[in-house]
């Protein structure tokens, strides 16, 4: 049967078909929909969100050693978090097949960097597969379990945004019944004390030699011959772009990307006048092929930054003198306003940012919806590095600048559970005078509202006890704790001032939930009395999408404001800061 599936949905389907028993991860664009699909459509598989990728990976390792086929999912930067267990799990090897997905984000559509995680597979001495469409995403995932069990190794499935979020046609089949495996005690294999690890490192080296042989014969690496004198070596979405603009050339399509089939490549290159490597981001294939003494070119024509596209590949092929016509018109970009993402109308983070902006203090930020607080006109953040970094950043800044300047860290609830707890522990241990605002909206909101330990629900929808942030924070040794309603501007402002003046680490918890999750929260909307509005623009500066410029202007020609009542959630913030009290509830307005 044929289905239209995104790459992520196809991975989930593949896990189901491969007889996976455990699927685990932490949300992160573009990987999130894999586990969401598991929980929605493939409920016979046990699936869970873990607090972060390292824990998810470790849970997955336990499941594999326990005998089950296991899937672990994350975005590219998530693998940085899980790198510690990965590097050693590569030594122990698996019991039940173990595959993890690294969903990379070339072009940084919603990421803080664009690292190429194919390098991670090399670093860890494990194989990776690189699908080029939805069908391959499913097929390769299923095959990856066979590879994992046959070669006793974790396997990486490397996706990119264009593969994860592209829908294509997939042939689905009924699930396999993989042979049951049981846990067998084997400390020499699974306990990596130095004496055991030394033995295992030798096993890993031999495994790479075996995998290199497999790479030469796997059907995922194959030649498409068109009798051309030009050869292209490519994989992933880059292969699709190249096929699109130059279907006439010969192709060595790479699906099993490490170790490379260097012998096959050597013969392929020898049989062509010129061979180019077309790959997105880093020259991972190109460098290895060149290091093997085989003459190819690549990055000098296609570049190493950002996403490729058919147009970019066509330009590169033209530069290399391989195609004449490039059907790429110089695009005339319209001179238009930008439309950056913004905090939603009624977002509870807005009040905290307004207060911080007013105080003019240094604010270390983190990864989540609230990172949008950096954008104009809020301009409320000074750093954003990685998940959980805000608290550590604040401690460092405070230690060198002194507490008089005041440093505030902002971090979301999901991010706090992910990797903020240890940062806060550091603040307590080393007596830092930082103020940490935990923006608790009770959802992993940026990626679409996933559950976490503080929401009281699991990925599969089961109700569970929720972790109380206040109790947790106090248990870490924080003495100064306050909860505040971020919809109350004055209360928030004085709370931050008060806690910043208190010696030692302090934590402020905001109490309003995400307006979108789990259900859109709407209260009575506000309206603006245009007679009272003097066009001062104070309400424009809070960056609420529900507030727009009206056609009426003040005596100096500045636009007065109007509120879109279909967007207004009634959060009250604009009414609190309006100096002329022109913003009234719709019902009050009718009476007035």
């Amino acid at each position: 049967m044929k289905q239209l599936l995104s790459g992520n949905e196809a991975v989930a389907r593949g896990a189901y078909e491969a007889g996976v028993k455990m699927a685990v991860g932490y949300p992160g664009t573009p990987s999130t929909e894999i586990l969401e699909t598991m929980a929605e459509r493939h409920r016979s598989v046990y699936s869970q969100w873990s607090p972060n990728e390292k824990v998810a990976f470790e849970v997955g390792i336990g499941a594999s050693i326990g005998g089950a086929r296991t899937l672990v999912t994350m975005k590219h930067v998530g693998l940085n978090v899980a790198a510690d267990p990965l590097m050693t799990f590569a030594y122990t090897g698996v019991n039940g097949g173990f595959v993890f997905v690294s969903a990379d984000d070339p072009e940084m559509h919603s990421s803080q960097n664009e690292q190429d995680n194919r390098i991670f597979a090399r670093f860890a001495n494990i194989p990776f597969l690189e699908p080029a469409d939805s069908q391959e995403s499913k097929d390769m995932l299923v095959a990856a379990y066979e590879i994992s069990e046959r070669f006793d190794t974790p396997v990486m499935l490397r996706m990119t945004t264009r593969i994860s979020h592209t829908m294509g046609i997939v042939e689905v089949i009924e699930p396999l019944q993989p042979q049951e495996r049981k846990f067998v005690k084997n400390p020499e294999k699974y306990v990596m004390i130095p004496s055991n690890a030394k033995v295992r490192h030798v096993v890993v080296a031999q495994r790479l030699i075996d995998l290199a042989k497999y790479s030469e014969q796997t059907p995922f690496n194959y030649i498409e011959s068109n009798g051309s004198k030009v050869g292209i070596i490519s994989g992933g979405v880059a292969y699709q772009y190249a096929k699109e603009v130059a279907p006439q050339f010969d192709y060595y399509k790479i699906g099993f990307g490490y170790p490379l089939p260097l012998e096959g490549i050597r013969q392929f290159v020898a049989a062509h006048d010129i061979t180019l490597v077309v790959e997105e981001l880093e020259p991972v294939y190109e460098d290895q092929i060149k290091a093997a003494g085989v003459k190819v070119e690549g990055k000098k024509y296609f570049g190493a930054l950002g996403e490729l596209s058919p147009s970019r590949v066509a330009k590169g092929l033209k530069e290399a003198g391989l195609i004449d016509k490039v059907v790429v018109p110089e695009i005339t970009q319209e001179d238009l306003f930008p439309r950056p993402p913004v905090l939603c109308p009624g977002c509870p983070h807005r009040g905290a940012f307004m207060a911080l902006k007013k105080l003019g203090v240094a604010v270390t930020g983190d990864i989540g919806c609230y990172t949008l607080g950096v954008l104009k006109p809020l301009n409320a953040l000074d750093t954003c590095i990685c998940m959980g970094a805000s608290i550590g950043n604040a401690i460092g800044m405070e230690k060198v600048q002194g507490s008089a300047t005041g440093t505030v860290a902002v971090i979301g609830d999901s991010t706090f559970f992910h990797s903020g707890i240890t940062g806060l522990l550091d603040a307590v241990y080393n007596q830092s005078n930082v103020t940490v605002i935990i923006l608790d909206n009770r959802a992993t909101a940026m990626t679409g509202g996933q559950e976490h330990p503080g929401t009281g629900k699991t990925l599969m929808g089961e109700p569970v006890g929720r972790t109380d942030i206040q109790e947790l924070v106090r248990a870490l040794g924080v003495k100064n704790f306050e909860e505040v309603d971020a919809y109350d501007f004055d209360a928030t402002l004085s709370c931050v001032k008060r806690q910043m003046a208190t010696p030692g680490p302090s934590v402020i918890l905001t109490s309003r939930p995400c307006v979108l999750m789990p259900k859109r929260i709407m209260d009575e909307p506000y309206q603006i009395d245009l007679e009272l509005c003097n066009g001062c623009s104070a309400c424009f500066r809070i960056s609420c999408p529900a507030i727009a410029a009206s056609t009426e202007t003040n005596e100096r020609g500045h636009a007065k404001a109007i509120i879109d009542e279909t967007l207004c959630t009634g959060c009250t913030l604009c009414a609190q800061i309006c100096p002329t009290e022109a913003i009234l509830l719709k019902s009050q307005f009718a009476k007035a």
Partner: protein
Amino acid sequence: MSEQFYNILIVGVGGQGVLLASEIISQVAMNAGMDVKKSEIHGMSQRGGVVTSHVRIGKKVYSPTIQQGEVDFLMGFEKAEALRFVGWMKKTGTVVVSHTTLVPAIVTSSKEFHYPEDAIADLKNKAHNVIDVEADKIAGELGNPRLVNTILIGVLANLLPFEEKLWVDVIKSLVKEKFVAVNLQAFARGREFIWGGGSPPPRRN
């Protein structure tokens, strides 16, 4: 049909239903026996940013994205967003655009940026075939501003070679049950738009 190839670029603002619209079109194409790829970017763009979705339909589709200058149909759920992407059009391509106007906070809060005075007129200057639809108004008549996407799908359906039944079946299967009836109404209003409006649909060369 096997010779035909359609590149459809759908643009709008987060929350307008760009992704559902492109999924409906893709599903119809698959059910009609064509190869199809649909590529979208979401994530941060869900927070009121620009959302784009590429749909490519043909006998065999390689790239999931459309090359610049190769768009056959540009579907704009917001008129300034249609203008932003009009440079991606083929000369013979057609723009289907809603009069919907969404002015972002960055425009209202600064002097630096301006929303175009007459985006529809600008579009007509830059593209040969522009079908402008007061889909925002029609959606309001149908009682739900979120129907702009289905109305424009109805208009597009007049320009693609797929049977009515395929569209209706896919809408039924992809739209939440309680919204099916009103979405079918919206689709019908889009279908009527060209035939009822008297102007013949533009033909692709």
